[in-house]
């Protein structure tokens, strides 16, 4: 179980037993509330009316302002563990790294394995380790920017921690959110992780080289995606063998010239 967010394994939403368990423990651990009389005598109310994630939002807005100012196209790249984020970036760096001025921030709980892969592919990269944390937040990106100092008009990829749940809540200040889903994960993912798919601009359907070997109906996936997000574009591709990458590069180039 991840200690920052309490997420247990890959599909916490699928395990109703977990929630029931929490209810039991939460109730047992709760101290008896002070009686009403006691409260009225001693206590004072302070009205806050404040969004809980307000601090993250403020820092994210600061990052967004900096990106706009520097014409940096910042892309938050999200997926479940192992859907192919780093493989996609390696190929993209090799084929378009110089043309697009690609820089990468790698988010992982531990190791710098992904950063090593990106560096070997030839891009400037910074590894951010979140420890027990299961997502990047805006403050981590602010600190990473101070260190990485991406050049004006560069294209900055932020590979988030592999996780379809928590990162959906945390705005980093990115211009675009790109979610990767692999055909090996099944067609139902948009419905099971609606927050993630609802909030993205583009979905890359990866590992299409495996379509002959796994039961996966691309049209059903797309229709589930439409249900939660009528606007996101979808591009099928294989980061491994390169099929479909040209459409992805076209999208990226338009993003960058739009900056």
């Amino acid at each position, binding site marked *: 179980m991840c200690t920052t967010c309490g997420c247990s394994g890959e599909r916490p939403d699928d395990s109703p037993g977990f929630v029931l368990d*929490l209810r039991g423990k939460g109730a047992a651990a*709760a101290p008896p509330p002070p009686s009403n009389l006691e*409260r009225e005598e001693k206590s004072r109310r*302070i009205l*806050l009316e404040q969004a809980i994630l307000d601090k993250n939002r403020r820092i994210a807005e600061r990052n967004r302002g900096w990106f706009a100012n520097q014409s940096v196209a910042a892309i938050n790249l999200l997926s479940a563990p192992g859907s192919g984020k780093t493989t996609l970036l390696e190929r993209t760096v090799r084929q378009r790294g110089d043309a697009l001025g690609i820089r990468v921030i790698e988010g992982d709980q531990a190791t710098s394995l992904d950063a090593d892969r990106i560096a070997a592919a030839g891009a400037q990269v910074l590894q951010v380790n979140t420890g027990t944390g299961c*997502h990047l937040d805006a403050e981590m990106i602010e600190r990473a920017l101070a260190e990485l100092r991406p050049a004006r008009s560069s294209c900055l990829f932020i590979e988030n921690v592999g996780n379809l749940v928590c990162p959906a809540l945390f705005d980093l200040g990115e211009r675009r959110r790109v979610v990767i889903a692999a055909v090996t994960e099944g067609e139902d993912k948009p*419905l099971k992780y609606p927050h993630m798919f*609802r909030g993205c601009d583009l979905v890359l359907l990866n590992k299409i080289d495996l379509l002959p070997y796994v039961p996966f109906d691309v049209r059903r996936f797309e229709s589930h995606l439409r249900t939660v997000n009528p606007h996101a574009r979808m591009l099928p591709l294989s980061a491994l063998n390169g099929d479909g990458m040209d459409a992805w590069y076209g999208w990226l180039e338009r993003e960058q010239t739009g900056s």
Partner: protein
Amino acid sequence: MHELGVVMAIIDTVVERCEGARVNRVVLQVGKLSAVQPDALRFCFDLATEGSLVEGASLDIVEVPGSGRCRTCATVLALDQPYAQCRCGGSDIEWLSGDELRIVEIEVQ
């Protein structure tokens, strides 16, 4: 589930705003569509407040039902989940309520 992360953010804000006093009660508004589970919040809250000014405070969560308006035909729908299909077939829904994640007020000693 990112509830512990959310609870940390709550505690940070409450400690910042409680004027150094002990906190008896925290009132939240949590929307049905906010991707945050009230039960998980309560569980994390008891653990995470230990040793802070918020320790022992009660946590009141006001759940806000989800609703949205179809962008195709303007029908208003109740939403139990972050997506829906309207009678007209449209699934492009503007959220009217349900994404709240707010600290409404606190009670201090």
